[in-house]
């Protein structure tokens, strides 16, 4: 950092990226060269911005600067890396570097190789746009980058543009994104009307006092950012778009892209519009709880591993919002200690989710590449053929299930504390009603996620292969495994050193309005305390050692005989044990499907094909699907209504030049009359 002025790092990294994009496109005939240039370059640029972000956090001083200045018009696009931006930039770098390295191997796959230049260039465009979105200092920069990010994502979603489903997913994504962007523009214009400049700092510090209806603004921004974050019911694009992109891109989309929405919600909705109102916090908790629960419930019914992971992103966004909502309610009641717990939990989970979801997507990508299928019903037994991928996927599965001592547990522990300590410290009936509901929802979500990942890991990686391609799978190359090992180690490290993470997060939380003097919730690098020392504290590392010690006892107890473990076939109930007699993913999640049948409205058809007697079926066909509730009952009527209105508008816009000229004249006359009238 000493050689370089911090203010130059971001422009330099972005310029570097532009150069890479140009070079990758220029090399488009030579796949290997353009792949290496694009992804290795992207990793370097991401590392640079990550270092800038950690410099901001460690020095405590914002880094500001100008990206582009147009002297003639005086227009300039500026950036401002403050604590919150820095945190999200670190989250981005932590995932973008491994993903870029992984892509070196992944994009070399024969299916994708010929698209190296395209993928490399758009990948750089996307990561660069996300960096600008997170670091934007003013509304104009933000909206430009936001739009580039949206379009780059859409381009990556249609990588396999031959598939109709990819094109449809991209269209859905664009349609909803623009709904969201429309809300954002409306919100920012309203704010800007009361502010002398467009920079975020003046906009957000002065505008709230001048705006008459902050709740309307809150809802506009919450919808606008919520579309990107994938909150229920604006989530419908997410499970379509994320799986359609190449898997390494999916990892980035699920891990970081949706967090740009969270960043916006934290910066603008939660704490940018003045002290949050109680009703906003309640809304955020409820939306978060519903997103978390529905996300995991829908994930349980998915047997396409990428769709399953995409639904889990909705769940985790819900968990992030639960913490944030608890924090907002805490601040609304003037309890900055509760608020700090909630916001720390939320931001901690942002990082954790990026790490374990990225890891899971990368592992799934390896399995998909090795077998050619995303259906876990066709996989099985991969742990023997892909031991490293399997081990890393298991670590990610345990982390996302919130099991100690991994990182998912640490941030969920903190989210629980926000509810529990908030409950304890409050006398408000609303808190006493809402917070236990939030805690119960979080507990249910976590436990269901564990069930889902027992299924996802067990069916994919254990027992017998269910198809030829699963039986012939080969381990991914080292360039794809190394990023997974790093991310798995991070899952463990972020879980064992929660105090370190919280100490890093401290300045970020304190930089938010309303949080100025705060008790430190970290106690050394290994421990966290909640509110008061006596309320709750946790040292996952020490307890992890206790579990290990007990594990050693278990090993010693069985040691003598272990060496001679006799290998025998599994009893196949009198028949031959084959992949067909194994438990399937559908069967695994069937009890939950029946228990939550009111939500899923399952539709199942069993058809027995018989030849001679109805008692001896030659073939039984089973089809089961769940009803896409939101698509059918919310979006279909909405789309029909839009189409009807559009149909009505056809009368006005029928392609007749004369009519259009008539409209122009009518408009001019009206304006002239209006001007005359008002003067």
């Amino acid at each position, binding site marked *: 950092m000493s050689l370089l002025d911090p203010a130059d790092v971001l422009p330099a990294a972005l310029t570097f990226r532009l150069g890479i994009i140009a070079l990758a496109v220029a090399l488009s005939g030579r796949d290997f060269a353009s792949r290496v240039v694009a992804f290795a370059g992207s990793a370097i640029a991401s590392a640079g911005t990550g270092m800038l972000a950690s410099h901001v956090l460690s020095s405590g001083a914002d880094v500001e600067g100008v990206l582009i200045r147009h002297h003639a018009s005086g227009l300039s696009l500026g950036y401002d890396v403050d604590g919150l931006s820095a945190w999200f930039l670190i989250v981005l770098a932590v995932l973008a570097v491994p993903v870029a390295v992984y892509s070196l191997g992944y994009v070399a796959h024969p299916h994708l190789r010929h698209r190296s230049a395209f993928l490399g260039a758009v990948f750089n465009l996307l990561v660069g746009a996300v960096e600008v979105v997170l670091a934007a200092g003013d509304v104009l920069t933000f909206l430009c980058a936001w739009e580039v990010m949206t379009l780059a994502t859409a381009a990556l979603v249609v990588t396999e543009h031959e598939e109709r489903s990819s094109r449809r997913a991209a269209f859905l994504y664009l349609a909803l994104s623009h709904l969201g962007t429309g809300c954002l523009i409306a919100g920012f214009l309203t704010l800007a009307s009361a502010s002398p400049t467009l920079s975020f700092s003046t906009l957000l510090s002065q505008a709230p006092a001048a705006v008459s209806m902050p709740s309307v603004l809150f809802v506009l921004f919450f919808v606008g950012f919520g579309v990107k974050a994938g909150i229920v019911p604006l989530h419908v694009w997410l499970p379509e778009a994320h799986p359609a992109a190449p898997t390494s891109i999916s990892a980035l989309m699920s891990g970081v892209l949706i967090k740009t929405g969270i960043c916006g919600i934290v910066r603008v909705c939660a704490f940018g519009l003045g002290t949050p109102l109680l009703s906003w916090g309640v809304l955020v908790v409820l939306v978060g709880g519903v997103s978390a629960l529905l996300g995991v419930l829908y994930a349980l019914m998915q047997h396409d591993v990428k769709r399953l992971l995409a639904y889990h992103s909705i769940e985790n966004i819900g968990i992030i919002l639960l913490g944030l909502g608890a924090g907002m309610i805490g601040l609304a009641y003037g309890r900055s200690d509760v608020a700090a717990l909630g916001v720390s939990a939320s931001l901690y989970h942002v990082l954790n989710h990026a790490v374990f979801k990225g890891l899971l997507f990368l592992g799934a990508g390896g399995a998909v590449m090795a077998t050619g299928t995303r259906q876990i019903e066709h996989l099985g037994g991969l742990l023997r053929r892909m031991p490293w991928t399997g081990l890393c996927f298991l670590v990610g599965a345990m982390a996302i299930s919130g099991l100690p001592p991994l990182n998912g547990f640490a941030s969920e522990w903190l989210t629980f504390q926000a509810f529990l300590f908030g409950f304890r410290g409050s006398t408000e009936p609303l808190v006493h009603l809402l917070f236990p509901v939030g805690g119960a929802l979080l507990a249910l979500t976590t436990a269901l996620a564990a069930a889902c990942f*027992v299924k996802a890991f067990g069916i994919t990686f254990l027992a017998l292969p269910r198809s030829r391609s699963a039986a012939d799978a080969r381990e991914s190359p080292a360039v794809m495994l190394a990023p997974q090992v790093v991310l798995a180690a991070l899952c463990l490290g972020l879980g064992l050193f929660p105090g370190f993470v919280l100490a890093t997060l401290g300045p970020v939380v304190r930089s938010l309005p309303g949080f100025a003097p705060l008790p430190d919730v970290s106690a050394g690098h290994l421990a966290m305390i909640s509110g008061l020392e006596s309320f709750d504290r946790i*040292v996952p590392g020490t307890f992890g050692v206790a579990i290990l010690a007990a594990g050693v*006892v278990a090993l010693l107890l069985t040691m003598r005989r272990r060496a001679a473990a006799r*290998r025998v076939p599994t009893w196949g109930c009198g028949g031959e044990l084959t992949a067909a007699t194994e*438990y399937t993913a559908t069967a695994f999640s069937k009890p939950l499907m029946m228990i939550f049948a009111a939500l899923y409205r399952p539709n199942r058809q069993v058809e027995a094909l018989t030849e001679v007697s109805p008692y001896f079926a030659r073939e039984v066909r089973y089809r089961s699907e769940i009803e896409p509730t939101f698509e059918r009952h919310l979006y279909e009527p909405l789309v029909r209504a839009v189409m009807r209105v559009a149909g009505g508008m056809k009368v006005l816009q029928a392609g007749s030049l004369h009519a259009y000229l008539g409209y122009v004249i009518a408009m001019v006359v009206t304006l002239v009359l209006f001007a005359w009238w008002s003067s």
Partner: protein
Amino acid sequence: MSVEALLALVAALLQAGGMLAAAPLLRTGIKKMKARLQNRQGPPLLQGYYDLAKLLGKESVQSETASWVYAAGPRAYFATVVAATTLVPVLVAAAPLEATGGILLLVGTLALGRFALATAALDTGSPFGGMGSSRDMTIAALAEPALMLGLFASALSVGTMNLGVLVRDLVQQGPSWHPSDLLAFAGLFIIVIAETGRIPVDNPATHLELTMIHEAMALEYAGPDLALVEWASAVKELLYLTLLVNLFLPVGIATGFAPGALLVALGAWAGKVFLLAVAVTLVESTNAKLRLFRVPELVSVSLGLAFLALAIRFL
């Protein structure tokens, strides 16, 4: 290492060892009482130990289709349950490792063990393993919010999530007999039945294919592996019962390490756990096993009780 840390270490070893030693007796005791209620003789009280000794001495058998996960499952399950015993106050109003975490860590650790066993159950390729794994994770998922809320209800009334601090405060206050405590106790009792695989949720005595839950997960295990699973399940049951009696009937718990007080505490703890074991036996003997899809109703009763407990205390 400081004196306190050393003391905690010794206490943790003693407590984990003690729970390991006592757990088989509880299981056999319940079996014996059930048998007596059915006019049978039942097994000798030490049968649990004989079984474990025999299983531990047998050779290890492993499925050809299984990977290392199969062997790791029982060991991880055992390790988590044994480690979890150090988070709960048993005889003294302090848990050996209470400085490392409270209720949430306890629940999380038990969930880790369950995850390990349920995952390992899928490894042999036998349909029974999958069946048990699926059902166990389903019931656990439904039980988790009720378990958490029940524990929160009693913990929040004192104002701490740390079990050591909680029991110390409770011992000072004495049993409150507040209606919310009774509701929370009833709710948690249901959950303990569900989590320990007892009738009416699961039947520990059956190996009937279509009704097994926990037993189906352990079906493919033999010898030392099976011993670990059985032993850990017994410890888990003792752990839950200890938690219940110490949270809701904090009588006779020692506040120091004086030998006399410890003896009294041992007697009180054994007596209280025995009473609860009698209750479990009576429930097991007078109820039929519920259909799997009726279990959610039972669990939601527990969830409702926990909510009510919170509501009447705080609203």
